[in-house]
């Protein structure tokens, strides 16, 4: 139960009189839908990281910003922790509920408030699904660029809270690059506007700070996103390699030509075979690795770039190169990649998805080390990789009902993340820290930096009521984790203050 909130390591929560809280909410916000029976709470016990489950004290489903404000005011006065949840598709347990806390579910905020084709912006409520924005903008030839694989289900509020990425980040950026303005409700229940409808806003850039803040600084109630004109053309080239290191080098070779692909994805043999069995995308099942390279933009440039990429791939030793003949084939090539997680899920009763990032040059050595670690922990790992931006998704296959496999999978996952940090990367590229990677934060950041994060948090949430126990570990937790890990041969913070 590494995920359960532990007051010794995560900080003391105030004792909440549940019945008094329910009575007060009902009296002050009578319209607010409130769930407190166990059977009603059950569907909210986890997010997309289903291995971590915990029933919330109660669930509220507001429909208006005023209700959110009133709820936050009540919780602020009573010292009640609040965990905000969007669509619940997050993969790091960021929306894992607290036994002593309210789960604030924003799924009723589903209105697209305005699409302004002239200004190329959409103003939406946080519960609007990512893909729904692009669908609503489509009649104007516009779309919302960030496309996490869960885009049919994930909501834009969650995308901001996690600074979600996707397969097109290298060229089109993350969520933070595509949002102009956010309305938030503070821990005290006040409304605050971050950013503006212009390209910047006066003062400190709190809009950037809120991206990826995992519900720790405020509750997002409205978002203005940028829309882009649809590229005139998109082509996908698929290249097969008999050696994964060659595929890794080919990625660098493509970038070195000066081309920025719309998407650049890599899959290893196990992932290719799983996807092919599941989707029949036409992947070469004998290959050690494939690269999917999407080139998009204006037709004249795309044709030229396709030829250049084919030349580069050939020179890099690709054993087979295919250009998707039409949009149907292009969609099929991508379908295999987008379904890679569930496809791998069919190979094994359980799988655990990692999200580390590394400098691309470290790819061959990191993949080699992952293979060695997998052998050490006697588990299989499939690798899916946003190769263009160095974001790895090793998928650890295990069976939770078999002996200590869950513990081994967790331990292997932790080792892989530490490997990413050692290679100069990060423990999370797009899934967030949440509850899942709270211990690994202690590897990536030293106590002075963790203290600075708490200082930032304190500026917005004096009493630590917003999503406690997530994203930023306490120093007590890091000390404990450091003690646990000392047998790996390194002290937890050897380098603090080199001056």
């Amino acid at each position, binding site marked *: 139960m590494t995920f359960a909130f532990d007051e010794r390591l995560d900080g003391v929560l105030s004792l909440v009189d549940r019945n008094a809280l329910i009575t007060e909410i009902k009296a002050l916000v009578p319209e607010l839908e409130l769930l407190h029976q166990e059977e009603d709470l059950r569907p909210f016990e986890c997010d997309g990281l289903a291995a971590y489950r915990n029933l919330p004290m109660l669930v509220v489903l507001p429909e208006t910003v005023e209700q959110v404000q009133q709820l936050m005011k009540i919780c602020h006065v009573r010292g009640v922790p609040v965990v905000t949840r969007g669509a619940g598709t997050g993969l790091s347990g960021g929306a894992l509920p607290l036994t002593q806390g309210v789960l604030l579910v924003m799924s009723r905020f589903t209105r697209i408030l305005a699409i302004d084709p002239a*200004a190329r912006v959409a103003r939406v409520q946080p519960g609007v699904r990512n893909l729904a924005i692009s669908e609503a903008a489509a009649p104007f030839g516009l779309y919302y660029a960030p496309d996490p694989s869960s885009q049919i289900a994930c909501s834009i509020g969650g995308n901001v809270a996690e600074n979600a990425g996707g397969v097109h980040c290298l060229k089109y950026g993350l969520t933070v690059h595509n949002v102009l303005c956010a309305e938030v409700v503070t821990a005290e229940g006040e409304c605050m506007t971050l950013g503006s409808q212009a390209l910047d806003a006066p003062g*400190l850039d709190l809009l950037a700070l809120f991206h990826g*803040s995992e519900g720790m600084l405020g509750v997002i109630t409205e978002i203005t996103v940028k829309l882009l004109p649809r590229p005139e053309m998109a082509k996908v080239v698929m290249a097969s390699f008999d050696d994964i290191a060659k595929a890794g080098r080919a990625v660098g070779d493509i970038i070195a030509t000066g081309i920025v692909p719309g998407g650049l994805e890599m899959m290893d043999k196990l992932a290719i075979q799983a996807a092919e069995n599941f989707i029949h995308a036409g992947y070469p099942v004998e290959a050690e690795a494939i690269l999917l390279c999407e080139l998009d933009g*204006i037709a004249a440039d795309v044709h030229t770039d396709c030829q250049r990429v084919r030349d580069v791939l050939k020179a890099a030793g690709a054993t087979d190169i295919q250009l998707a003949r039409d949009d149907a084939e292009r969609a099929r090539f991508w379908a295999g990649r987008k379904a890679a997680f569930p496809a791998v899920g069919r190979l094994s009763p359980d799988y655990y998805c990692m999200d580390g990032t590394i400098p691309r040059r470290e790819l061959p050595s990191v993949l080699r080390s992952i293979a060695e670690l997998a052998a050490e922990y006697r588990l299989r790992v499939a690798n899916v990789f946003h190769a263009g931006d*160095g974001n790895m998704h090793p998928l650890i296959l295990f069976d939770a009902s078999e002996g200590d496999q869950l513990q081994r999978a967790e331990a292997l996952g932790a080792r892989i993340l530490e490997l990413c940090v*050692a290679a100069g990367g990060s423990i999370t*590229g797009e899934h967030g820290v949440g509850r899942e990677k709270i211990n690994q934060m202690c590897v990536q950041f030293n106590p002075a930096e963790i203290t600075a*994060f708490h200082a930032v948090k304190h500026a917005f949430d004096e009493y630590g009521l917003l999503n406690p126990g997530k994203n930023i570990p306490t120093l007590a937790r890091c000390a404990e984790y450091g003690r646990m890990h000392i047998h790996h041969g390194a002290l937890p913070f050897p380098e603090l203050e080199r001056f």
Partner: protein
Amino acid sequence: MRMDALSPLNNQADDYAQNYAEMLCRQVRDARANRSPLQINGGGSKAFYGRRVAGTPLDTTGYRGIVRYDPVELVVTVRAGTPLRELEAELKAHGQMLSCEPPSFGGSATVGGMVACGLSGPRRPWAGAVRDLVLGMRVIGGEGQLLRFGGEVMKNVAGFDVSRLMVGAQGVLGVLLEVSFKVLPRPQACACLRLEMPLDHALEQLTLWGREPLPLSAACHDGSALHIRLEGGEGSVAATVKRLGGERDNEHYWTALNNHDLPFFADPRPLWRLSLPAATPPLALDGEWLIDWAGMQRWLKSDAEPHVIRDAALRVGGHASCFAAGQGEPFTPLAPVLLQHQRRLKAQLDPARIFNPGRLYAEL
């Protein structure tokens, strides 16, 4: 374990930089102990920007040099005192660039000053702002401690994004030491056009073009003509030149605009920058206009009262900053709730108020 808190020593220049950084940390610790404010200086090219700071000068220009640059990774890590033009020359030698096109205002600009001020050039609406390129940072915090946020990878959501928070903060939250940027290949083709047309027509035209996948990378109206820059592949640039017509323009126009070297900027009246939502019609304010960023950044030379200019910008959802000294507050006042949270942030990260106090707002 993570890469070390400072970049590795590998030559004399790095040795010098290391000693220099230690000296900066000591100065910050002394200032902290004496509660004596610091005025953080780079090349001084943007000294006019923001409020006056009374404090002991802290000179960052000795902490210079490119720490790591691997063109294939599209990432460069630079010390804050590095002259911006030195960085730009190095990137150019490898066919790459800072796509936000930061202004240098005279040539002494440093990388640290560019990030602290957060000003971007003509390409900004299409390629993003300074903050969009920042991947990570090393800073000296309020206790004189060395802190590292973000990293040298494109995607990183571990912890709060303190590096992007530092961009445009004008040094009020810490001393910037090193910055890692995402860099991009320079475009394969570039063409500049000048199209004679009135402002209202130009704004309408830009709104229409904005909905098409055109290779636009700059658009500025100078009062009588629309200047356009196209960047992309040979094919798309050539086709768009043919389609839009007009006369060929010199690409130096954009450098002159970016660094405020156009004759427009010689007008003795105060210079205002209005940052406005897309598709905002022309504003009725007295003075001369130069309409950059396809209408989203408008330069105004005007003797109008500051509150008149501010109110006009606020009414359409934007804000106005004064780029001339002596006009009162340079930046638009913040809503009370925003000011309150920014003050708390300042108090948390710089409790002794030693970092450029009052440069951005009197309260910060």
